[in-house]
């Protein structure tokens, strides 16, 4: 089921963001409990971007994401229990345990294949947008991090998208923005020697803009408008989302500094963790949006708690499903090397 309809309303967006937050917390808990191995990537602090982008899509559209895909998957309507089962390498996962967290994909949701290679997703997404153009309907949204601008694949994909004029929305999620610079026209990245990353697509005649990743309403307006432009013009657009990195993400393995997110933090209570407290205040789209909705009278604390309770219960159920799901039998390793039908002997 694609969730985008509900997420077009403020309460739907809030609920969608909260589901992602609670999912990611469970994911960290499972990793720390040794329930799965390998590195993984968490979307805490970027939830508003996935929710806003996916709210602008329809069923026939395509979505390309990266190793940091959990938020995009959930916002597009993926089932958390099948995602977690896949992350644990279980038979009940979307790929029967073959993809893990890095390559989560759901073809029925238009998430065809997920590359964990930096920049690798951009040419693929451009090709899917070419397919949209050829069939005469649909658009493609391509999420990637700022590090993709360090890869040649990004330039080649943008050259093609611009030359061919295919309907694609490039969403660069720059999650390394110091809060003080987030709202200004500066785009620092860890290694890329550019003052403003959005100049790069502009040089290839891909119209680009920047938006604050901690402002859910601004994101919603921006991504809805850009997706509509892509849909009507048939050409590419580029947006750079400025997010301040969540403190749990500074480690080589994600952690929950200050514990799970608390509703109370949006109602005046302070986190004991100083870095987290500052981040919640300045950079967390969820915390800020909840406060905004409460201040506007759209939501009260009891409703927020009930919404949170539903998200927690849903994710607890997903964890149980994933833990209960069996591992795939060893023979499964030999399946799906080649698609069957029309195949060679």
């Amino acid at each position, binding site marked *: 089921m694609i969730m985008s309809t509900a997420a077009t309303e403020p309460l739907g967006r809030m609920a969608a963001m909260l589901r992602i937050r609670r999912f990611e917390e469970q994911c960290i808990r499972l990793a720390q409990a040794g329930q799965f191995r390998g590195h993984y990537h968490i979307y805490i602090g970027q939830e508003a971007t996935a929710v806003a982008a996916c709210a602008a899509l329809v069923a026939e559209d*395509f979505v*390309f994401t990266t190793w940091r895909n959990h938020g995009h998957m959930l916002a597009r309507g993926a089932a958390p229990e099948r995602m977690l089962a896949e992350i644990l390498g279980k038979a009940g*996962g*979307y*790929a*029967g*345990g*073959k*993809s893990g967290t890095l*390559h989560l*994909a*759901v*073809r*029925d949701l238009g998430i*065809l*294949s*997920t*590359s964990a*290679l930096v920049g*690798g997703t*951009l*040419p*693929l*997404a*451009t*090709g*899917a*947008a*070419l*397919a*949209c153009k*050829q*069939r005469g309907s649909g658009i*493609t949204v391509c999420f990637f991090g700022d590090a993709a601008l360090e890869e*040649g*694949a990004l*330039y*080649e*994909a943008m*050259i*093609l998208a611009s*030359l*061919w004029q295919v309907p694609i929305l490039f969403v660069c999620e720059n999650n390394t923005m110091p809060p003080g610079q987030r709202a200004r026209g500066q785009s620092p990245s860890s290694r890329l020697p550019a003052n403003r990353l959005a100049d790069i697509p502009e040089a290839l005649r891909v119209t680009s803009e920047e938006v604050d990743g901690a402002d859910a309403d601004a994101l919603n307006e921006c991504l809805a408008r850009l997706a509509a432009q892509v849909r009507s013009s048939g050409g590419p657009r580029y947006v750079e989302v400025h997010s301040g990195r969540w403190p749990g993400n500074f480690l080589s393995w994600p952690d929950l500094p200050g514990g799970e997110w608390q509703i109370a933090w949006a109602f005046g209570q302070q986190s004991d963790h100083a870095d987290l407290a500052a981040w919640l205040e300045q950079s967390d789209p969820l915390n800020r949006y909840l406060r905004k909705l409460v201040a506007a009278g759209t939501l009260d604390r009891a409703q927020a708690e009930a919404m949170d309770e539903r998200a927690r219960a849903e994710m607890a159920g997903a964890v149980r499903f994933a833990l209960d799901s069996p591992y795939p039998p060893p023979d499964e390793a030999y*399946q*799906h*090397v*080649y*698609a*069957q*039908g*029309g*195949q*060679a*002997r």
Partner: protein
Amino acid sequence: MKITFAEGLAKALYESLAADPRVLLIGSNFMGLNTAAKQLMNPLVSEFSNRIMAAPVSELGLAGAGIGAAMAGRRPVVDINTGSFIFQAFAQVVNEAANVHYMSGGQTSAPVTFYCLAGIRGGGGAQHSHRTQAMLGQVPGLQILTPGSADDAYYLMKWALLESRNPTVFLSHSLLFGETAELVPGAQMLPVGQARIRREGRDVSIIASSITVMRAMAAADELEHKHGISAEVVDLRTIAPLDENTVLQSVARTGRAVIADECHRRFGVAAEIAAILAEEGLALLKAPVRRVTVPDVPIPYSPTLEAELIVTKERIVTGVLRVMGR
């Protein structure tokens, strides 16, 4: 009707575009530097211009776009141009296309074709002469087509564009463009994955593919007329899938094997065939297997230096004489 290899390619491309609106050409320089053969593309370019994408010099991007379009329901062929340029696209061909079906647990397939003008073509030098079938043979998930005749150029390309459900590397060869074959209208193609016995023989099996097929056929003629040796020629046609059975059955008849292949010697196609014969066919062999391959050096430019390295008819004959104990 008699067709050339280049005509077979152009005919397959034209008929595929006409047969299926999902077929898409990403780039259209299939004939390389051969200006005469380029003319064969004219009807196709004028008739299907809306499905022929202009291609900048972006092999990685083009390959990825082909994969993405294939995953999203199109049937693209990406013109990689000179086969060595597939290295520019390796990240997409090897690490995306080949993994899509597997990583998605069978949800998504990517029926894209990468067309390469591969091989030692005369004057290509170190950076334009690669044969990548052995390297790509290490990549599960890819199909690798190595036609050595005009009819297979036609049939295999058409199969890749209209029927295949998996990513395919089509290794063309510019020195094969003038080769001719009889194309019988309405005839069935030998199934993909099945090798063809090009010529039957009793004394030795010469196992070949792509450019070495015609050289093996010429060697077999010479062996028969000058040396009284009856050589069987096995045309592999495809490297993945690899038809082990036909190779083993041929060697069961002849008892000797010479493998003629244009890849480098180490870890090459010939090395793989030799390993299969060692594992599955040792009892069939009356003499050690012989590999006739390209020595492990880059391909030099000068004609005398290039000639020193290539797999010629003469070198295949020498290889056969050795396994015959002469």
